[in-house]
């Protein structure tokens, strides 16, 4: 346990010392928010202000982008010699990976707050109680944790940090083909099926519902199940992959 904390501290220090990566992690989400609201705001007819509709989706996208960095940092660790050092100090693979995931969570928490602030600046007005807002944030962070573990497993699968970056594009696809940016009913039939049954849709719907104070029932159960499922399975796969690569 203490090992995991020391590893988290290390990962945070490493994040803070890569200025380009940090800048990208903070600026990219902000830029995405601005682009989507202004680019699509006039063209997409939702019925409500587009910024209110799309803000949760962009938050999800930002979370995904941030979590995907974990794939790169894990891959970099494996490529160097430091993992050997940790292993000879009897640090478990899970502790090392948990360190990366924890740093990812903290990085994303900061960028999430930043993006919400920018959304406010663009006219986003949540109609939620404090509890609903906190619940939305909590769900978002749970999603970040799950996506980070997924990214960690991906980082163990590939050999080059550049290939690990492609994890980002894979995850982003899920965000686009969901109700994050446009309602599912406006999609062609072949995409609709996929969009309605993949994790990004219920998660976005729940966050959106919580933030905008919707009265209808939210797919909270589905969202939680997806997050926990992806997280736990990824953790297991990551542990197996780590053991296999360090045999």
């Amino acid at each position: 346990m203490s090992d995991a904390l020391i590893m988290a501290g290390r990962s945070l220090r490493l994040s803070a010392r890569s200025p380009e990566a940090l800048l990208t992690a903070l600026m990219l989400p902000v830029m995405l928010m601005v682009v989507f609201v202004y680019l699509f705001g006039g063209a997409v007819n939702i019925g409500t202000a587009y910024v209110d509709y799309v803000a949760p989706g962009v938050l999800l996208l930002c979370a995904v982008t941030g979590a995907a960095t974990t794939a790169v940092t894990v891959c970099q660790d494996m490529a160097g010699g430091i993992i050997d050092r940790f292993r000879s100090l009897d640090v478990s693979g899970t502790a090392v990976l948990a360190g990366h995931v924890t740093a990812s969570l903290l990085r994303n928490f900061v960028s999430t707050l930043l993006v919400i602030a920018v959304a406010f600046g663009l006219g986003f007005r949540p109609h939620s109680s404090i509890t609903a807002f906190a619940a939305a944030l909590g769900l978002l962070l749970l999603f970040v944790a799950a996506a980070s573990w997924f990214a960690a497993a991906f980082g163990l699968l590939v050999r080059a940090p550049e290939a690990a970056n492609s994890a980002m594009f894979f995850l982003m696809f899920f965000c686009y083909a969901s109700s994050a940016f446009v309602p599912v009913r406006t999609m062609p039939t072949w995409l609709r099926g996929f969009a309605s049954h993949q994790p990004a849709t219920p998660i976005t719907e729940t966050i959106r519902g919580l933030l905008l104070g919707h009265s209808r029932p939210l797919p909270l159960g589905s969202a939680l199940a997806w997050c926990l499922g992806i997280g736990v399975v990824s953790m297991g796969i990551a542990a197996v992959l780590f053991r296999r690569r360090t045999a």
Partner: protein
Amino acid sequence: MNERDRAGLAATAHAAPGQAPRGAAASGHADTGLAVEATGLAKSYKDVRVLDGVDLRVPAGTVFALLGPNGAGKTTTVRILATLVRADGGQARVAGFDVAQDRSKVRRRISLTGQFAALDEVQTGTENLRMMGRLSGLSRTQARERAHELLGQFELTKAAGRRVATYSGGMRRRLDIAASLVARPSVIFLDEPSTGLDPQSRLAMWRVIEGLAASGVTIFLTTQYLEEAERLADRIAVLDAGTIIAEGTAAELKRKVAAQRLDITGASRAAYEQLISYFGTRIVHQDDGSLTVGVPTEGDAAEVRALLDAADPGRDLIADFRLHSVTLDDVFLTLTGHAK
């Protein structure tokens, strides 16, 4: 260095010469006093048999060198002994514990410094050592003090606050070794410690290793440099293509081949031909250009004199002679049948 020098250094480090060095009981198995004991180690990667039955015995408190060319299996051997890789066959006990059954116990008593520095480039020297200290179970204060102590010992105090990425190759190696010493291991594995270093850094590295040896820890190093093995190790094992082909002290290994070589130069071509026919199958070296033949000899004065008199009773065939001390290069050539 030879036994006498090591004992002398050990004496100044509070251990009496001839006595088991301090820490031997902790590092060696209670019964055998061996810090490293391996039997029949085997390891294959895909279809390649990297190790094919390796036996090793290293008494506690000594310096042991595994000598071999690139691809011999040195790094694989060290990684198996350091519990980072599982052998396909055979057993090994390090610091008194089995490497397969008691990995944690072994890891707590050993360290491995590989060819490529195992450090965070983005952190400073101090931060790296403090982190290793905390991971070894030291408190924040203890880790800070230990880091400070090691940085001083390895002359890195001035660079301690700089990121490792700014360090030179020699400094990185020193910090790497310092990092492996944080937990005070009783067995230190060094995988090719001076590969890639310039001559000056190599000399500095040797002094560091000699200092470590004097403190009583067991050192197991791998190397492809014969000079390094000869200088640092009490015992050497020669590894080639996955098996140990020779083992002993540097002196013993040299004796396996022939202690010395006597090169005799003929006074004329006819004399040269006569010498060739006299020595016959004993000749190990021949040079038509300089009219020289070489034969093995123990090298002592009586034998050389007798050899020269027997070959040239009339004192008119031999123009010149020279005695060569056999080097480990010759040993290697003879034992492996190919240049390293």
